[in-house]
């Protein structure tokens, strides 16, 4: 039986780490919208990414499904904004996604920040979408959220999130209308409400 002690230790350690990984359901209270009462944005839409996670393409797919005029340019710069009337930014840091570009994390932060600042300056609404939920809760993604939320017009995210308490506090602080959904597909309704 002595030979199984390391196995037992390994399982115990895994269980111990599990308690930290489990999502804490308690979160800060925030008033959310099931969808916006009036449209806040117009087409043409620039769909871009903050963090280069591949799931940014999901919003392009949803936009196409809703027949919204949009361009999917995950690496768009602030200078590209002149031809669009709204910005949809999908947040989520992907190491592999970023390695496809010639930028590093710092430059990606700078690009995203500059883009939303330029949009704010030109009164172009910014819709921030986070569909990674519990799966991307690294410091880089959280940093991106922190830097973009102050310039955001509308936030759509998932209910299930480890940082949800901090996130809700941040959204509340910046008076960002928020919609939280259970499933990615449920984004279609609030997203549509922002335009129609």
């Amino acid at each position, binding site marked *: 039986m*002595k*030979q*199984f*002690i*390391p*196995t*037992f*230790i*390994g*399982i115990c*350690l*895994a269980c111990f*780490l*599990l308690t*930290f*990984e*489990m*999502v804490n359901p308690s979160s800060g209270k925030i008033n959310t919208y099931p969808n916006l009462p009036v449209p806040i944005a117009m087409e043409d839409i620039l769909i871009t990414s903050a963090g280069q*996670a*591949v*799931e940014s*393409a*999901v919003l*392009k*797919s949803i936009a196409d499904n809703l027949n919204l005029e949009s361009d*999917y340019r995950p690496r768009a710069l602030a200078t590209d904004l002149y031809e669009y009337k709204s910005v949809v930014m999908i947040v989520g840091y*992907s*190491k*592999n*996604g970023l*390695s*496809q570009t010639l930028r590093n994390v710092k430059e990606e932060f700078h690009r995203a920040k500059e883009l939303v600042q330029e949009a704010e300056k030109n009164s172009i609404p910014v819709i921030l979408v986070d*569909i*990674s939920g*519990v*799966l*991307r809760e*690294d410091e880089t993604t959280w940093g991106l959220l922190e830097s973009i939320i102050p310039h955001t017009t509308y936030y759509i995210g998932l209910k299930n999130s480890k940082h949800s308490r901090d996130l809700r506090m941040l959204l509340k602080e910046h008076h960002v209308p928020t919609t939280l959904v259970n*499933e*990615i*597909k449920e984004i279609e309704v609030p997203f549509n409400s922002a335009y129609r």
Partner: protein
Amino acid sequence: MKKNDNHISIMIGSLLVMLGILLPTIVESSSTYMIENMEASILLRDSGKLVIISILYVAKYTMIFFFIFFGGILVIHGKFNRNGNLIWQLLYALTILLILFIYNYLHKEGFSYIGILLTLAILLFIQGFIPRRKNFYLIYSVLLFIVLLAMSWMQLIPWLSKFGIGTNDIATSLKIADHYLTGNYLLNTLASLFFILFLIISVILTFLLNLLNKRIIAMEKIQEGEQELKAARIALVESKLHEEINSLVHDLKTPLTTMEGLSSLIKMRLEKSGETSIKNYLERMGSSIQKMNDMISEILYEHNKQPISIKELLEYVTSHLILAEQNIEIVVNLEGNLPPICVNKIRFSRAISNLLENAISSMAGKAGSIHVNVNRVDKHIVFRIIDNGQGIKTSHLHAIWDEGFSTRNSSGIGLSFVKSVVENHHGTIQVSSVPGSHTQMNIILPIHEEGEKAYEYNNLSR
């Protein structure tokens, strides 16, 4: 395990670990392929592409972790040379955790330690059942591969994400894409299925290996027992045979004694009648009977020795040798003024004959030569028997003296008999051989000084 093997093990292990750590950089194009196809899969709403990406993901990370886990075991095995005990297992686990910490730090892929710990726990559990035999690494690598396949699929199971499993970048992207396209139905089914399948295969394989190992051990024990029994039987038969031969040879002495007595009686009678020619014949007959009596005594009593000139001994040996139409030349070189040696003539001759017969056999029917050189070196006589036959393999040089060892399906008692005879004469025997070139047997016998006790048990023969 030898020191050299340990160094090789550490070196190969370190190389594998390095390869595992650097592999994501080497095969970066695979990540590009996966990311591009995932994007295409979302935009085209084609979940089929996700299946291909999942398989590619599993292949890539199984390979990376295989190098790390297998390299780790080689390093620990080489460094500490202790396989299977508690400290060894803990060291292995710590090494793997350290390597994967470095991997996570370098590549920032965010592999969760829960998955790593569970993989380690399964591997350490399985290791306890892998027999520590010569095929350990092969068996371990097969099991490791299957376990890693299972664990890589486990990383892709979406419903395990809430437990912190499958948090690395590509697995996360895959799960999100799958969530959008199929509501995680595809990966929950596919990944869970493969995870369970490979896990069951690894468990069954481990169970079968353990069963097989127990069988092999039991069979080895039975074989050992059988061999011991066989050896005991042979020893018993040999001892009985030896006893029989001894008593038969001893029985020969009785009629010889009668013949000796009667010839003496006839000689006495003839002396009285003055017949001389028949008396001569009788004297020669008596001398032959005496010689035969001595020979029988030497066969019966191995300590019975007598001084004999080396020339006479070698003539006696070579005259009894059967060369059977082989083109073999026997060259005998004796140093001048060699003193006589004190040996049991029959046994020592048989020993030299055995060596010469072996030399002849080593020619394998081809022509060759055997040199028998005898020299005096200090207080010893050295017999050198050199043949240019096939030689003896270096690995067999020690085993040839063992009773029963033979490469020619013979009884295998020839050389052990030679050794025992030489040692019984307070001598030593050495062998040197170059396979395919020659074999040299050296018998070194001490020279008995004059006055030294040379006849041992001589009285017993009379």
